[in-house]
């Protein structure tokens, strides 16, 4: 497989190492299709959420009384920036700069971990004021949607960490580039979902 691939004279690896081999291309396409499915998955969660918005919750536990803008804004910035750093990592991967790729990936991980920490803090806060998974249909729908997203973030962190450790001492090649690349697609998708979460769940929820 690898022998058929033409290397770029400057970078020393193929121009698009993530899809230079058939295996890589398969992975790339398959992962996009998977994201197509994930789109519908999150749509189902969003649909349920908007269907049950504030349903069954007492006035003081309704969206416009519990959501706080500051925290959501910080979380949004963290995740949005991590999407950019993930792009930078991939650009460095294509340019065959393993060092800088790793650096940007670590930054991505840190930002993601910060996001996750903030989310956990947020959930604990809600728990204390009585907005829980079982307190109302609204609570169930909220935690399911946002929690599914949080679970995706967690999985993404674990995945990228594993990739980093495994390939720490290896050069970038057509075998590991697709792995890095699809994990970064995954990470962007997490951000895509978050954009809708902050717009529809939080901001719209605050508008009353």
């Amino acid at each position, binding site marked *: 497989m690898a022998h058929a691939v033409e290397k770029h004279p*400057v970078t020393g690896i193929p121009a698009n190492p993530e899809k230079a081999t058939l295996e890589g291309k398969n992975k790339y396409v398959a992962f996009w299709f998977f994201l197509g499915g994930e789109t519908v998955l*999150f749509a189902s969660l969003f649909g349920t959420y908007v269907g049950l918005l504030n349903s069954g919750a007492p006035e003081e536990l309704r969206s416009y009384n519990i959501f706080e803008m500051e925290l959501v804004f910080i979380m949004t910035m963290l995740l949005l920036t991590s999407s*950019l750093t993930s792009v930078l990592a991939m650009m460095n991967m294509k340019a065959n700069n393993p060092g800088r790729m790793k650096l940007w990936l670590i930054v991505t991980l840190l930002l993601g971990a910060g996001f996750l920490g903030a989310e956990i803090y947020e959930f604990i806060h809600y728990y204390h004021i009585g907005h829980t998974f079982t307190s109302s249909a609204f609570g169930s729908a909220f935690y399911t949607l946002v929690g599914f997203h949080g679970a995706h973030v967690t999985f993404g962190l674990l995945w990228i960490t594993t990739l980093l450790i495994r390939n720490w001492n290896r050069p970038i090649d057509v075998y590991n580039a697709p792995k890095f690349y699809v994990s970064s697609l995954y990470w962007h998708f997490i951000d895509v979902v978050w954009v809708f979460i*902050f717009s529809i769940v939080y901001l719209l929820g605050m508008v*009353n």
Partner: protein
Amino acid sequence: MEKRVMNESHKQLELEVKAESKREYQLQLISFAMMILLTFVAFGAVYAELMPVWAAGGFLIILAVIQVFLQLYIFMHMNNRGNTWIVVMMWLGIFVAIITVAALRLLIW
């Protein structure tokens, strides 16, 4: 002599690669700046209570949609050459997603 030509053309290539990657870099940065901007507008509008309630939904969703397309098309390069089927499948996914949300919003009383 030959070697020098080789070197020359290699340098040329290197320059091209650099320029290309710079263009790419700028594109990504610009789109990031736009995302940040859109986010600020969304948060700001809600914070300052600039919109009437009925218009908020549409407005926020439009901003979100623009931002998401920046992600998909620029950060994720969905539109790359050879990605026809990827684009088709993503759009079908978006289509199913829209009718799903619409149904769960409109058809449950």
